[in-house]
């Protein structure tokens, strides 16, 4: 293979070896071979189907008894590939280490839709598992023929079919290696009984971790293809501004750069990446003024008073209005969550190769390859059947970050100049232009009767409408191309109601006509703010009733799984049963408290409870989170270590969002464009995290990439209330905001 050449993964597979990339490395250094798929030992049969109904679309068994699994869902650092390998290994009866998973290549993987909403394992994994269960039946049948014994006397295990009674078996490789299964996925093919699981439920290490720790993994940012140019896109200084003039003379002294302009789409390309970076910074261009944004400083007010497109009754049980009127204690409170970004650590990157014959290949870290392909093909007028998106890992994305936009940038550039182009955004591009998680305003009203029962609960939420259609691509708008202008953030209203016994409950969503900035799904869309409000307000009710927050919750729950996560959390945490605030909060110069929160994800999936201990410095307003304990029940656990990693990540990332994060913007542009303007949690702030995982092997698989994010902000705010007696209802809990709240103590909730 030529130096500096990386073929698509399929071509590499065709070439028959591991994933070999040779780099021009200077005479003094050896060439480095990277093996992305070390266990991959044979080329898959040519013409492998990708139809979701075929076993061969998902599973290829090689002659040496290793297997390759092809899935449409993608692993964005979540461990999905490993978990899916375990599911397949279990059904086939082999070790997960002998399975390589290839994800998200639209040319060779079945289309399982985009990856998000914690559906990777639930939907994606289940589909692959059923293909494996079907293949298991075929392996037994082939074994029966080979061993000349009836299927009922055989078992598939340790990579071979062998007599249950003992005796020599025959390996999977020998049975099918190199040939196709040639059968439809049988939705009725029996799954292995959970009681006998050998691979599912074990902490199989992720093979990508070793590669990531040694620089061997090829991220999308690391890809090089022949004749590739590096590009940087110059985005307008204001959202909606158009380009009026470009002074190419401003690039004098920077070698080999070329300006590419398509209407208001402006970019520089060069063989040399640094030249492109320098040129993008140096290029003088003039743009029109644009002042279309509401600004972030008055965003709460803007959200409350903005034009409403429609009101949606999300839930209405009983008669809330009448019940509130009758209640003996009434409380109201308003909670606000600001705009937040995905803030991927590495800016989005893509490589596109659009050929004159209309065929195209796009290497991308986007979570939604198949829908992105449809959009790119349509917007740029390219035949979808000749477009292939090859997923390569990027910096973690947690939803739709800038990856779709940067892919569009790369496609437009490659199509325009007729050469493969790599575009990587700069830090400010990602912070300013990634579609973001929108603001949420929640107003809550509740009534308790004399016995402390919740007789009425009313949640009113204001949020920007999910406009239908695909999200507009920045490059296409700038270039004046026709496209849809959808703007959606996901299922924003879930978990807006309390998970506790309450007689009359209403949840109303007021959908605003406008969104301040482009939105997208950001991890656990809507749920984090909703649970922040619902569980914070629940704590306010407990405080008003003078009851221990844990006991208040437990006495209003009947679901044993809900009760178990709360009690296990409390036990592991060492919960002190007493009402908040903490009468003995003061420890030296600090105020110390505990907080707890519970939720069931989407009111239908994972059960999560979380407790926290915080120390608040009233002089500085700094909140230190000392420790977090979380009990988590997501049904069957496929990989306990992978699950724990996800839960820990959910907790720490959401602490960052609750403590620090707010996208700021003025009338023209996002102004929080680096890690100083948009700070995230740092190591000195990292708490000790303890996770209690409850395994239910008899229950179905649920995803776990999001659920543990949802109770974090509420548990934190509840702990701060316990420590200080002050209720924080607006995120982020910055020192300035905390100090201000502490110097103006307010009642725990507006009681009427």
């Amino acid at each position, binding site marked *: 293979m030529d130096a500096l050449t990386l073929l698509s993964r399929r071509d590499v597979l065709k070439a028959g070896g591991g994933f070999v990339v040779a780099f021009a490395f200077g005479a003094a250094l050896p060439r480095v071979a990277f093996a992305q798929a070390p266990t991959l030992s044979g080329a898959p049969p040519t013409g492998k189907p990708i139809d979701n109904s075929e076993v061969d679309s998902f599973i290829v068994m090689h002659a040496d008894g290793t297997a390759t699994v092809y899935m449409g869902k993608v692993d964005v650092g979540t461990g999905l590939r490993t978990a899916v390998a375990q599911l397949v290994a279990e059904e086939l009866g082999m070790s997960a280490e002998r399975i390589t998973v290839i994800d998200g290549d639209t040319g060779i993987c079945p289309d399982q839709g985009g990856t998000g909403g914690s559906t990777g394992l639930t939907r994606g994994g289940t589909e692959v598992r059923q293909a494996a269960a079907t293949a298991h039946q075929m392996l037994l049948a082939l074994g029966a023929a080979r061993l000349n014994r009836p299927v009922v006397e055989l078992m598939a295990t340790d990579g071979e079919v062998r007599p249950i009674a003992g005796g020599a078996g025959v390996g999977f490789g020998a049975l099918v290696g190199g040939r196709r299964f040639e059968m439809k996925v049988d939705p009725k093919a029996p799954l292995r009984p959970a009681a006998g699981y050998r691979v599912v439920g074990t902490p199989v290490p992720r093979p990508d971790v070793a590669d990531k720790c040694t620089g061997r993994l090829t991220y999308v940012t690391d890809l090089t293809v022949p004749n590739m140019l590096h590009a940087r896109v110059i985005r307008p200084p204001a959202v909606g501004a158009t380009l009026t003039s470009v002074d190419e003379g401003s690039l004098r002294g920077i070698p080999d750069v070329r300006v590419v302009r398509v209407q208001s789409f402006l970019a520089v390309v060069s063989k040399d990446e640094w030249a492109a970076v320098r040129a993008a910074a140096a290029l003088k261009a003039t743009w029109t003024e644009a002042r279309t944004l509401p600004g972030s400083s008055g965003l709460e007010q803007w959200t409350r008073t903005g034009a409403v497109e429609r009101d949606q009754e999300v839930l209405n049980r009983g008669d809330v209005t009448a019940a509130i009127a009758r209640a003996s204690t009434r409380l109201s409170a308003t909670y606000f969550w600001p705009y937040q970004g995905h803030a991927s650590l590495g800016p989005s990157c893509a490589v596109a190769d659009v050929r004159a014959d209309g065929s195209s290949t796009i290497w991308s870290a986007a979570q939604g390859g198949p829908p992105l392909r449809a959009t790119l093909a349509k917007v740029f007028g390219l035949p979808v059947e000749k477009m292939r998106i090859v997923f390569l890992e990027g910096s973690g994305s947690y939803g739709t970050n800038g990856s779709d936009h940067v892919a569009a940038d790369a496609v437009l550039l490659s199509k325009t100049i007729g050469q493969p182009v790599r575009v990587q955004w700069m830090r400010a591009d990602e912070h300013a232009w990634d579609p973001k998680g929108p603001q949420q305003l929640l107003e809550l009203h509740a009534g308790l009767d004399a016995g402390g029962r919740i007789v009425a609960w009313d949640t009113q939420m204001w949020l920007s409408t999910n406009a239908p259609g695909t999200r507009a691509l920045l490059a296409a708008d700038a270039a004046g191309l026709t496209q849809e202008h959808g703007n959606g953030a996901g299922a924003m209203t879930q978990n807006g109601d309390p998970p506790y016994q309450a007689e009359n409950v209403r949840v109303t969503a007021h959908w605003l006509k406008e969104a301040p900035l482009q939105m997208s799904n950001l991890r656990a869309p809507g749920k984090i703010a909703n649970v922040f409000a619902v569980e914070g307000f629940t704590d306010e009710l407990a405080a008003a009733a003078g009851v221990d927050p844990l006991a208040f919750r437990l006495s209003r729950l009947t679901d044993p799984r809900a009760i178990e996560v709360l009690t296990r959390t409390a036990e592991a945490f060492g919960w002190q049963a007493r009402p908040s605030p903490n009468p003995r909060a003061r420890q030296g110069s600090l105020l110390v408290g505990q907080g707890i929160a519970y939720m069931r994800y989407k009111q239908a999936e994972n059960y999560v409870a979380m407790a926290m201990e915080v120390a608040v410095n009233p002089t500085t307003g700094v909140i230190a989170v000392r420790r977090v304990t979380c009990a988590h029940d997501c049904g069957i656990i496929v990989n306990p*270590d992978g699950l724990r990693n996800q839960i820990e990540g959910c907790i720490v990332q959401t602490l960052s969002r609750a403590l620090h994060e707010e996208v700021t913007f003025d009338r023209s542009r996002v102004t929080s464009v680096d890690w100083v303007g948009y700070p995230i949690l740092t190591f000195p702030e990292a708490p000790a995290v303890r996770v209690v995982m409850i395994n239910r092997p008899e229950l179905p698989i649920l995803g776990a990439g999001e659920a543990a994010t949802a109770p974090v902000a509420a548990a934190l705010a509840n702990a701060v209330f316990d420590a200080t007696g002050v209720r924080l209802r607006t995120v982020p809990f910055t020192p300035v905001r905390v100090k201000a709240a502490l110097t103006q103590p307010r009642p725990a909730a507006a009681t009427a």
Partner: protein
Amino acid sequence: MPRYAFRLNGRPVSAESWDAAQPLLYVLRNTFGLHGPKFGCGLGQCGACTVLVDGRATRSCTTPVSRAEGRAVTTLEGLGTPEQPSTLQAAFIAEQAAQCGYCTNGMIMTATSLLARNPRPTLEQVKEGLSGNLCRCGTHTRILSAVMRASGA
């Protein structure tokens, strides 16, 4: 074009750069194909690009290639391989201390430099030592465990 000679992962190399101010990061990634160091911010704020220069953790995104002249530069690839990882790399693998892994380079390089100066740090010292390295995935708990494991604690 001016050439800059330095040692890279133990071997003498030289690289051309039309711009003496070109950050070492681009030279490592594009001239030498060493993709361990990552572009995160280009501003010295995140640590994703960290390499060792004469054994010290250094942000290659803000280090001009001219400053590497005559020095010894070590990247993540120079520490070890999946087959023969360094102690710290092995500890990160054992703790499975990565999600997306985009920050991992910076964590391992910074901690390598930290442990070289202070082989038995306390947890607080490790947190302080990594305070300039950002991880968006929230892998902090595991990264700390990995560094403590490598220190023998």
